[in-house]
Structures are given as C-alpha cells and as structure tokens.
C-alpha cells in the first residue's frame, strides 16, 4: 500500500472541531454564541468561495441563507419538528432544490450578469418575505429549542449542545466541500474561471460545472442559515437582504480562498468586529465595513491567508537556505 500524503485541511478541520468541543464549556456564553454565528457565516462564505473560484461573484447567497433559516423556523412552527439533524438536512435539501432550479437559469451567465441576477433574485425574495405573513413579515419568526435525536437539553446545556452541533456541522460540510473541490469535477471549477472554451474542448460542459458550483454554494448557504437560526433562535427577512450576501463576500475577501478553513477565520473576525462595532460606532458600521473592504481590495487583494502562505514560504526559503548552507559547510 502506497503512503498517502496527509491532507492538512482535513486535519485542521477535525482539530478545530475537537478543540472547540473540548474547550466549549470553559468559555463564556457570549463567545460561544459568537462562535456559532461565525461558523454559520463561515459555511455560507465557503459557498461564495466555491463560486468565486469559478470567477463568479454571487450577491444572492442571502437567498439560500434565508431559505435555510426559514426552513428551520417553519418546520419548528408548523410541523413541530425540532430535531437539529433533521432540520439541517431539510434546510440543505430545500436550499439545494431551489439552487438547482435557479442554477439552470443562472448558469448561462457570467461576470456582472451573474452577480446582478443573483442579487435581483434574492431582493425579490426579500420583497416577498417582508410582505407575507407566513414568514412573519419584517418581524421574522422565533425558533424553539432544538432536540438532538430525541434528547432536548435545556438552559445552559442547550447552548452548549447547539454550539457543539454547529461546529461539527460546519466541519462535516466544509470537509465534504473540500473533497468536492479536490475531485476531478471540482477542479473543473477553477478551470472554468481560467478558460471556458478550453474546458468545453476537453469534453466537459461548462454549464454543468457552473450549475454544480451554484448548487453546492446554495446548499452551504442553506446549512449556514439553518445554523444561524438554531443559534440565534430567530429568523427574519433580513437574511435575504443583499447586505447578508455582502457579509459573505467580505469574509471571503478578508480571509482569502486558500482553503475551506480560511472563511472561518474571516467569519470570526467579522462577528467580533460586528459585536464591538455596535458598541463603539453604532451608526458608522457600513463605513468601517466598506473601508476595510476597500483597504483589502487595494492593498491585499488575495486576502489575509495570503500572508500566512507568504510567511510559510518565507520560512521555508530560510530553512532551505540553512539546509543548503549546512550541506555546503559539511562538504570536505
């Protein structure tokens, strides 16, 4: 049996999840809540990242975030279903089905057409949601406590359970996305961004690749929305608003696209920034948000994880040079 290379992304994902699970009871409630929001945002941002690898910028991922969140709320309210595993799967499925339908139409488009059409679709959903009673209008809906395979924890225990559940959901879906991106079909996504005509000449359907990327991104955003609903226990029409999708774009821009783990860093930074921003500068949130985005676009367009890659390369060069020097010195 040949020795397989260790997949550091998988190792990192599992290590993060294990460490967070073990330390969860030691950190205060509000940090756990922050972490939950962060993994929800991070998973949706992974979807944005997948699309961005195909060269497509979606301003409409809020739509699937909305679908995922409201799937949880509506199941809880009308079907009495509050099992976390079931609601997450239903959210993923409903977001996936909607993405599959919309994707058939959107996969024809590229560049700004794609961006603005996704934006338009999610703004239509927002327009419907604030008018229709089923979705609670602009007030939104409350979500009850979740149960986990029949066990319904209460009080502080419930918060711990939902945190650990969200972290592991993030791990599982991020890992699945990682394997998808590493597969032959997943690698075509990058190829589409580089040169579509060549992909067609190689015998693959560009439309199917874009469609698949869109469906994957939709499912991820749907699961993200479900996790946001489970952790905040409230959903509203704002989920479908374009600023929600803007958050995901911000996260990907901040953290870069090196791996599926990257958005977690950006998402945690975003949630921390947001919770301090509401205290420090409540009315200038967009100004700060936009300012940071502009700064990144202008000075570090590859994202913060580029810094890590550069630092890694830098130290490797130093190590290599040292190694070479020592071999030179050891020569007779």
């Amino acid at each position, binding site marked *: 049996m040949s020795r397989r290379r260790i997949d550091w992304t998988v190792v990192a994902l599992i290590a993060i999840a294990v460490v967070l699970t073990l330390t969860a009871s030691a950190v205060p409630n509000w940090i756990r809540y922050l972490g939950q929001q962060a993994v929800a945002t991070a998973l949706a941002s992974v979807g944005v990242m997948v699309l*961005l690898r195909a*060269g*497509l*910028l979606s*301003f409409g991922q809020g739509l699937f975030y909305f679908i995922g969140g409201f799937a949880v709320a509506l199941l809880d309210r009308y079907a009495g279903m509050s099992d976390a595993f079931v609601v997450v799967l239903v959210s993923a499925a409903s977001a996936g089905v909607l993405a599959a339908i919309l994707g058939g*139409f959107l996969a*024809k*488009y590229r*560049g*700004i*057409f794609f*961006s*603005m*059409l996704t*934006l*338009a*679709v999610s*703004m*239509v959903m927002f*327009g*419907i949601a604030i*008018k229709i009673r089923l979705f609670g209008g602009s007030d939104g809906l409350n979500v009850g406590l979740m149960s986990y395979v029949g066990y319904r924890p209460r009080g502080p225990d419930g918060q711990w359970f939902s945190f650990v559940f969200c972290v592991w959901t993030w791990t599982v879906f991020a890992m699945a996305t990682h394997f998808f991106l590493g597969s032959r079909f997943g690698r075509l996504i990058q190829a589409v961004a580089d*040169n579509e*005509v060549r992909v067609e000449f190689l015998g693959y359907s560009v439309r199917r690749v874009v469609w698949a990327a869109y469906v994957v991104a939709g499912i991820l955003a749907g699961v993200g929305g479900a996790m946001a609903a489970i952790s905040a226990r409230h959903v509203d029409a704002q989920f479908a608003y*374009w600023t929600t999708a*803007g958050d995901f*774009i911000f996260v990907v*821009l901040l953290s870069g696209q090196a791996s599926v783990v990257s958005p977690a860093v950006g998402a945690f930074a975003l949630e921390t920034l947001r919770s301090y921003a509401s205290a420090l500068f409540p*009315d*200038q*949130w*967009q*100004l700060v*948000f*936009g*300012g940071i*985005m*502009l700064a990144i*676009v*202008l000075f570090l*367009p590859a994202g913060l994880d580029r810094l890590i890659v550069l630092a890694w390369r830098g130290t490797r060069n130093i190590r290599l040079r040292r190694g070479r020097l020592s071999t030179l010195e050891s020569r007779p």
Partner: protein
Amino acid sequence: MATLSAILVDAAVFSAWLFLVAVGLTLVFGVLRLLNIAHGAFYSVGAYVGVYAIGASVSMGWGTAVQLAAAAVAACAAGGLIGFLAERCVLTRLYGHPEPLVLIATYALFLVLDDATKLVSGAQSLYASQPRDNLGQIAIGGLQYPVYDIALIAVSLIVAITVWYGLNRTRAGRCVTAVVFDSEISAAMGINVPRIKLATFMVGAALGALAGALTAPKIAVGPGMGVEVIVIAFAVVVVGGLGSISGALLGAVIIGLARSVTVHLIPEVEVFSIYLVMAAVLAFRPFGLLPPAQVRRI
C-alpha cells in the same frame, strides 16, 4: 379609455425616471467595463444635495426654476467631485484586475458613501417638495398629474439627446468611442486614455447625482434609497444591453410600460414585473436587446 391614457402617462413618467437613473450606469459600463454599484450611492448623494439646494433657494426666496437649476447644478458638481475622488483613489488602481474584485470595490464604495451621507445628514427623512407643489397640476385624459412629473419626461429626453450628441458628434465623444473599441490603439493614436476614463466616470457619477436631485422633490429622501435604485437601474440597462445608451432608453420604456400595465391591471404582481421582464428578455437574448459587439476569448 381613461385607464389606457393613465397607463401610458404613468409609463412615460416612470420610463423617464428609469432612463435618468440608468444612463450614467450604462455609460460607465460602456467605457470602463465595470458595473458601478456605487451608482446607487451617487443617486442618494444627489438627492441629499438636491434637497439642501432646494431648501437654500427657497429660504433665499428664489423662484421654482432657480430652485431646480440650483439642485441640478449642485448635484452634478457633487457627483462629479465624488466621481473624481472615487476614480482617482480607487478604481484607477484596479483596471485590469479580475471582475469580481472590481465589483467588490464598487460595493465597498457604495457602503462607505451610503453611510457617509447618513453621517452628514442624519437618519431622518428630508423633504423638498416645493418645486413640485409650485408647478401645479395638469389634466391629461381626465386625470390630474403633477406638471413636474410630466416635465421630467422632457428633461430625460434632453439628457438622452445630449449624451447621444456628446458621444457621436463631438471630438471628445469620438475619443470615448475609440477607447471603448480598443484602448491600446487609442493610446497609440495619442488619446489620453486615463483622462477619458476619468472624465467618463465623472460624467456617469454626475448623471447619477442629477437623477437623485430631480427625484428628490417627488420622494422622502432618507437612508437606504440607493439600494433599490442600483437593482432597478441594472435591470433597465440589462434589458437594453449593457453599455448602450439607446439600449438604456429602450429598456426604460419597456420596463416602465410593464410596470405601469401591471400596476393598473394586475397590481398583485407589480413587485415582480420588473424582474419578470428582465428574466424574459434575458432568457431569449442573454446580452439584452441592443448589445454592443463581444469578442470571444479562446
């Protein structure tokens, strides 16, 4: 019969507004090849400047014409200035970068400008309806319409003709067209390409601000008005074909008509009418009705 005339007049009024909002966006796209999300912010900046200009002229005791002229000039100046700063400080560094990155930059610009206007003028709604009230009403087909709204149709036609004339019949306009076709060859022929891009962006921003200023007397000017505008303007521009002025005019007429028909006959679907038209057009003509020629990359 009354319904028909109401539909037509409403469609004309709405189309005029749509064209005013969309023309700057399509102009900037045509020359710079970037979709400027910050256009929505230029619109709201223009609206605020318009409100202040009208307020100042009213307190000076000037007449309606001066109020409107002051609003238009002040908004164009403000839009041009912000456009200058945005192009010089941000966009000029990003030409040639991947499209998503440029789109993100204009989105960030939108956020910054939107909050900056809120910071300057507060979160409450402002009103400047004096010019519209003073101009009175006119009866068309048995229904009363504000003269101001009808006059905007003429204004938007004047803007359309001016932009068309400027692009097709002046030296500067021909330089712009040359840059659109091939900026490298234009540069080799001695055209100052960066200056053409800057000027086009400034004109586009000024047109966006002008649209805001002319809309200000009709609405409550408040935060968050720029978002809808960018989506609607994009719909108009896409239906007509991105980057084409006559396309924007065509798109404005089609969408204005669609909205006015649905408002009068089937009000339930009014919210979607714009998007339905856009989806229908794009399903058959993926690049709009009058698209500029495209080069295929091999």
